[in-house]
């Protein structure tokens, strides 16, 4: 068995050097890590699992990568190898991303972006890598289904001052402030996405389309009390029946408060916040406007 393992490892190295990632991973996955003959310690097993997962991820194969990361999950809690732990975390985040569990992926990417050490073992952590993790966190959050959970993550990211330096910041700001996103902005955002993030869903729309429509729908609830499906379809740039379907799904999943009158083809939006809270928010806006006027006056010497 020892000789077979050596051959497998050598072949995997060769495949890797030729960038045949999946083949390298398949070669390594044939090694029996739980063999009774060769006793491997947990660190070695973890290292192999993470290596195989990383190789599969190079070819965007989330299914196989996940199988090995799940094996690694049992071993990582007892591991004190910082480099391995970090590699595990990155793999896990990428797998969630590939599987379109965007919100969970965003939280993990964000955790990675907050690493304080600049040297872990022999590996240097450079700022670009952390910035990429942060950017990935923002992208995944924007692609995640609109709703209260996403709002919490958006708030965390928006308040992190590192995000204001990212190229993707303007769209983050708009999404956080629940403003309607226009087509040019969505197209610009689409250019930064990876292929799996632009994938087609069963209903022929893309992941991005669905995220943007849901976001714009929620934004609409902030500015109107009710709206017909024709108007909603026009606002969102989609067929009114599709708008109704998406709205009804969001209401059922409790990501939006409202009710649908199918006979009249109208959707009524409900607001979560109390009338008194809204009133205070209005007053804050008014006072701010007064402040701005006074500042303008004093800057003009009036």
């Amino acid at each position: 068995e020892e000789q077979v393992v050596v051959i497998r490892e050598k072949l995997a190295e060769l495949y890797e050097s030729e960038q045949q990632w999946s083949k390298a991973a398949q070669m390594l996955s044939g090694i029996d890590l739980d063999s009774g003959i060769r006793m491997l310690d947990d660190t070695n097993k973890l290292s192999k699992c993470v290596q195989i997962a990383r190789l599969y991820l190079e070819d965007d194969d989330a299914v196989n990568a996940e199988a090995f990361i799940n094996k690694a999950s049992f071993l990582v809690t007892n591991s004190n190898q910082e480099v391995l732990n970090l590699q595990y975390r990155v793999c896990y985040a990428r797998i969630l991303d590939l599987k379109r569990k965007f919100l969970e992926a965003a939280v993990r990417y964000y955790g990675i972006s907050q690493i304080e050490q600049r040297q872990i073992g022999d590996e240097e952590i450079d700022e670009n890598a952390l910035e990429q993790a942060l950017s990935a966190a923002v992208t995944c959050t924007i692609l995640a289904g609109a709703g209260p959970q996403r709002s919490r993550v958006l708030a965390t990211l928006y308040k992190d001052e590192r995000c204001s330096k990212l190229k993707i910041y303007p769209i983050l700001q708009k999404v956080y402030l629940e403003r309607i996103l226009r087509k040019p902005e969505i197209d610009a955002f689409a250019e930064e996405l990876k292929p799996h993030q632009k994938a087609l869903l069963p209903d022929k729309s893309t992941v991005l389309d669905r995220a943007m429509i849901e976001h714009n729908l929620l934004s609409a609830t902030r500015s109107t009390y009710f709206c017909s499906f024709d108007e909603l379809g026009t606002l969102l740039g989609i067929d009114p029946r599709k708008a109704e379907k998406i709205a009804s799904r969001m209401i059922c999943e409790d990501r939006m408060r409202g009710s649908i009158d199918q006979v009249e083809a109208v959707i009524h939006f409900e607001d979560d916040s109390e009338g008194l809270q809204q009133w205070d928010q209005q007053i804050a806006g008014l006072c701010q406007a007064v402040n701005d006027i006074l500042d303008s006056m004093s800057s003009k010497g009036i």
Partner: protein
Amino acid sequence: SLLRQVSSLVRRLPAMESEKFQDEFLTEYNDTLLMTYLAV
């Protein structure tokens, strides 16, 4: 531009004018008055 800002500000008044708000406001008003009466 200043006058436009002022005009826009004035047009935002009243700050709130909905039945839901009136209900909540008057309920709070009545609750506090009732509490005061009970305290007295």
